[in-house]
């Protein structure tokens, strides 16, 4: 109740009228003021509202477990993280896996591989698809987060969480995608089916790379807000919305290859709208997440 008393009393009406996110920053600040941060509340908030960019890194770090909920230990923990980062980096440079010229993303990848014990024997070894996804995500993340330590940690934990938390639900996503597409536009789905393109849609791009490289980062981070806060279904809706948005073009295309090609290189200009609609769609089908407490 303390939250509400400090919040602008108009916020309720803002939401009703449709101005979403007007009071979000303030409420987020209030949330962040709690000493042991309430992870649950932060999750709910992140699912309901887009995060203000200035707090995004902090919230992500908290949600991903990079920072503990206690403010007091933040500095120390962050120092640990930094140490760890520099250690790993140093080790890699020592074994000459990376050099100064190595791109940041690859550095992160090697670091991640090292930390997960999957470092190949030689940097010249071909990359696994997982690594490709990681690279893509890292590239996107580089744009979002300035600090390289943060960036590495967030990427690392994001991917880790993605693979651990959503390990069971990830294979279900294509099916869910079909189901929701059928609900939204059965004709489109039937068209895809007639083209036998359903199974060959760029699911990797969508569900393994989380649209990294597909959507511009400004809109992508809104999607990842939801993913970070624990919902991978948003990916399905983004995919559905992409198809709905480019329905006419997709309907015009008949061959699998063309459809896939088009979907892998969708125009960037309407991505913001796509994401907004996708979030609406997600809220519509899965309900607006409410804080359980």
């Amino acid at each position, binding site marked *: 109740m303390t939250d509400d008393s400090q919040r602008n009393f108009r916020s309720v009406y803002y939401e009703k009228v449709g101005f979403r996110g007007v009071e979000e920053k303030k409420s987020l600040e209030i949330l962040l003021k709690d000493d*042991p941060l309430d992870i649950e509340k932060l999750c709910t908030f992140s699912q309901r509202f887009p995060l203000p960019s200035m707090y995004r890194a902090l919230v992500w770090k908290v949600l991903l477990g990079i920072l*503990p909920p*206690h403010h007091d230990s933040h500095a120390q*923990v962050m120092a640990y993280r930094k*140490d760890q980062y520099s*250690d790993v980096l140093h*080790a890699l440079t020592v*074994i000459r896996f990376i050099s100064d010229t190595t791109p940041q993303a690859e550095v992160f990848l090697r670091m991640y591989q090292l*930390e997960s014990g999957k470092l190949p024997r030689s940097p010249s070894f071909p990359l696994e698809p997982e690594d490709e996804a990681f690279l893509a995500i890292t590239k996107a993340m580089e744009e979002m987060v300035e600090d390289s330590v943060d960036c590495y940690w967030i990427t690392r934990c994001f991917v880790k969480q993605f693979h651990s938390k959503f390990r069971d639900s990830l294979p279900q996503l294509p099916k869910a995608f079909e189901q929701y597409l059928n609900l939204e536009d059965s004709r489109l789905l039937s068209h895809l089916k007639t083209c036998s393109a359903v199974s060959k849609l760029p699911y990797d791009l969508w569900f393994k790379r989380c649209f990294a490289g597909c959507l511009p980062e400004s809109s992508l981070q809104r999607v990842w807000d939801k993913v970070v806060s624990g919902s991978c279904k948003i990916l399905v809706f983004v995919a559905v919305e992409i198809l709905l948005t480019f329905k006419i073009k997709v309907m015009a295309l008949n061959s699998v290859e063309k459809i896939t090609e088009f979907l892998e290189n969708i125009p960037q200009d309407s991505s913001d709208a796509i994401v907004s609609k996708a979030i609406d769609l997600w809220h519509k089908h899965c309900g607006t997440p409410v804080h359980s407490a």
Partner: protein
Amino acid sequence: MAQLANIGELLSMLDSPTLSVRDDVTTIFKESLNSERGPMLVNTLVDYYLETNSQPVLRILTTLQEPHDKHLLDKINEYVGKAATRLSILSLLGHVVRLQPSWKHKLSQAPLLPSLLKCLKMDTDVVVLTTGVLVLITLLPMIPQSGKQHLLDFFDIFGRLSSWCLKKPGHVTEVYLVHLHASVYALFHRLYGMYPCNFVSFLRSHYSMKENVETFEEVVKPMMEHVRIHPELVTGSKDHELDPRRWKTLETHDVVIECAKISLDPTEASYEDGYSVSHQLSACFPPRSADVTASPYVDTQNSCGGATSTPSSTSRLMLFSPAGQLPQSLSSPSTRLLPEPLQATLWSPSMVCGMTTPPTSPGNVPPELSQPYSKAFSTTGGKGTPLGTPATSPPPALACPPDDCVHGSSSQATATPPRKEERTDSSRPYLQRQQYLNDRGLEDPPASKGSVTLGNLSDFLGDLASEEDSIEKDKEEAAISKELSEITTAEADPVVPRGGFDSPFYRDSLSSSQRKTHSAASGTQGSSVNPELLHSSLDKHGPDTPKQAFTPIDPPSGSADASPAGDRDGQTSLETSILTPSPCKIPPQRGVSFGSGQPPPYDHLFEVALPKTACHFVSKKTEELLKKVKGNPEEDCVPSTSPMEVLDRLIEQGADAHSKELSKLSLPSKSVDWTHFGGSPPSDEIRTLRDQLLLLHNQLLYERFKRQQHALRNRRLLRKVIRAAALEEHNAAMKDQLKLQENDIQMWKLSLKNERDRYSQLQGQHDTMVTQLYSQIRQLQHDREEFYNQSQELQTKLEDCRNMIAELRLELKKANNKVCHTELLLSQVSQKLSNSESVQQQMEFLNRQLLVLGEVNELYLEQLQSKHPDTTKEVEMMKTAYRKELEKNRSHLLQQNQRLDASQRRVLELESLLAKKDHLLLEQKKYLEDVKSQASGQLLAAESRYEAQRKITRVLELEILDLYGRLEKDGCLRKLEEDKAEAAEAAEERLDCCSDGCSDSLVGHNEEASGHNGETRTTRPSGPRASYGGRSAGGSSSSSSELSTPEKPPSQRFNSRWETAVGEPSSSIPTTVGSLPSSKSFLGMKARELFRNKSESQCDEDGVTSSSLSETLKTELGRDSGVENKTPFNLDASHPSSPNSDSVGQLHIMDYNETHQEHS
């Protein structure tokens, strides 16, 4: 052929003198005609007829039945085309048509009609034309609607013939023209009657042409004087006339009568609608008479009854008047008026046959009846007038003249009958005429004297024959020829019939038709006899008819009246009867004489047809009915057909006379046949005569046809009259009934009156009864009231009694109550009494007991006094002891209470303290949790760092191993050593450079972990066994020292390093432990900070002791947490020493708290 021959034979047999043979042959022919359908037989018959003029054949031909009509018509048509046979075939056609065969409607479609018309337009022979026109006239009413196609043809024929009459083309003799004129006149009437509009328009157009004007003036205009305006001219139109619907309802005779109606000519006209011909006569004849001769005779004759006048005039001329008169009279008519008077003289009978006989018959009677009555009963005389009509009037005139002639009766006497009759004539329509006629009537006698009826004609002719000598031949011849010619032609407008003659002939025709067609046999005699017979018959009819027609009552009176007249007439008639069978005189006599002897066969029919009632009714009706009844007399004509024979005979006689004359003329050739006169001039004359005869015959036949039509009509009218009479009778009967019913009503009224009287009587009685009863009722009511009053009084008394009874009852009740009460009281009292008795007894018993007890008490008292125990001191002492004891106890109790209160207060204090402690404990726990989570977070991070380190080392090891592998492959030990030296140098350098160094890449198996703290130890998975072993040696102290004194680590680090360097020279590689000390120190600082914070917060609350306590507690906690965190990794050995002591301390503190509480 055999058949033909047979037919020829049969035909010849037809003319056999024997009747039976003739009849047989006739039947044979008819049978064969019935059986055969071919035209052969008919053709032969026609041929035969044309050859022989055989009468039986004619009869057969005229009665031909349906299938043969076509053949006959074809044959006739064929012959009409031939000029030679035209005349005879036309006469045959005339015969056929007049009989109105059933197929007459076919005539209009037959080709015969156009050919006939063509013949009429083309032919120039007057005889043929006249015959043809007559046939046409006869034919017209039979085919009225189909005639319209040929309407223009008719009109053309009329125009042609009318111009003929005037222009006389060729050398046609005047005598023929007269005939022709008459037939044209008839045609005019027919056409005008049937198609007035068309005809008038035709006349208008035809005679508007100049060349025809003369014809119009001379011929047509006079004709038009004899017709009145046809109503169709006003109402109808050309189309309407030709409309078949108009004709459908009309029968042939209707058409004929229709035509006759519009005629003003007395001979042609019909009287049905009340047109008075007399008027016309008066209108027409006066001028004519003036024209003809100025002589009053003619005038009067004309005026009185045109018909009679003419014959009279002629007869007079013939009989009485000297020859000198004749020329005048003849000449004048011959020029213009001849047709009428002259023809009339000869032809009146035949003409009258059709039209006017009926009037004559009444005419016979009326004179007789009317003479006496005439003065007295003008009205009754009037009755006769209708009968009189033009035709009747003459008879008296005729009758009178004879009287005059014989008796020389006064002019008055003679004048009366005519006057009366004239009056009758004119009285119907025009009374004015009467006087005029009367005036004329005065002049009649002379005229009537000379009148010669047709009946007389025969005689007259006979006379002629006998008296030829007295008259000059030429004149006679001329006269006769003229007469004859006029007779033939004048038919068209014959003057009013002369009843006397007409009737006899007519009767004759009747009788002859009935019984004699064989009149031929009767022959010469008949001429004289027949008339008489006929007269007789007529006489019978005469009286009968009027009777039937008008008044059945009349006859007796008529007969009675007739007697004087009869006397009178008788005288005259007796004389003249034979010579001149004038109807007027003869009737009465013959009526008496012959009436019984020869009742006419149809006489009884009238009796049946007209019952007395009808006659009675009719007699009442008088004048109203007169016009209708007029038909009745006409009905007498019904039996027709035979007057023609009479006429034939007449003509024959005339012919005979003429031949005689001729014989006289030419003495030598007296006995010569007709043929004898062939080529000579006389023969010429004979031929003309023959033609005339033929024409005359044709006229006769035409008239006969007309008469038949009239007869038909009469029959219809009679039926109507009969019906009317029946209705009248019915009416009369109804009236009788009405009367009877009226009588009944009267009777009923009477009885009603009686009933009313009775009713009023009864009413009176009833009233009196009622009044009596009322008075009784009043009395009774009075009585009733009295009784009522009495009963009222009694009732009040009764009421009083009842009240008294009630009161008494109440009293009784009260008394009863009292009694009961007293009884109750009594019983109570008795009970009390018994109780008191028992109590007394008890009292006595108790008293006794008391006494006994008192005694016992005394006894015991005595016993007591005898014994005295001393215990009071002891009791008092005991009491005091008790009291003291009680007080002691009380004070003790007080003490106890106070103690209790104190302890309770203490308990409360302690409890509050306990609560505080609990709260503190909770806070502590919460805080502990918080710190724990914080630490865990940090630990997680650290752990992850550790993990990373492990991974790093692993990678490094891998790298190293890899490098080793390579070295071994090279097999250069030196290099290896150099490498080792390099690595050592590098490690040393790194140690110097950074406090928290990375793990050295050259860490080997022999690296000692003894000097390291737990964490570093744990982070080295590789070679743990060795390090554990080492640590177990001096780990306990180090660990404890590390924990207790965090400041030490650097020294220790050094120590350990040195230890490793010294203690394990085998490895010869200085191992460096990186960031451990620093991290350790960091941890320690953190822990210290934490402790300090918490302790401060604790100090605020619990003061110094508690703060110290809390501090120790915190350290313990911190330690605990550290230990706990380490436990998974540390050896058991390090644990027991310190943690145990800590836990003891903790327990102790807790105990202290309790003990402190206890102490407090």
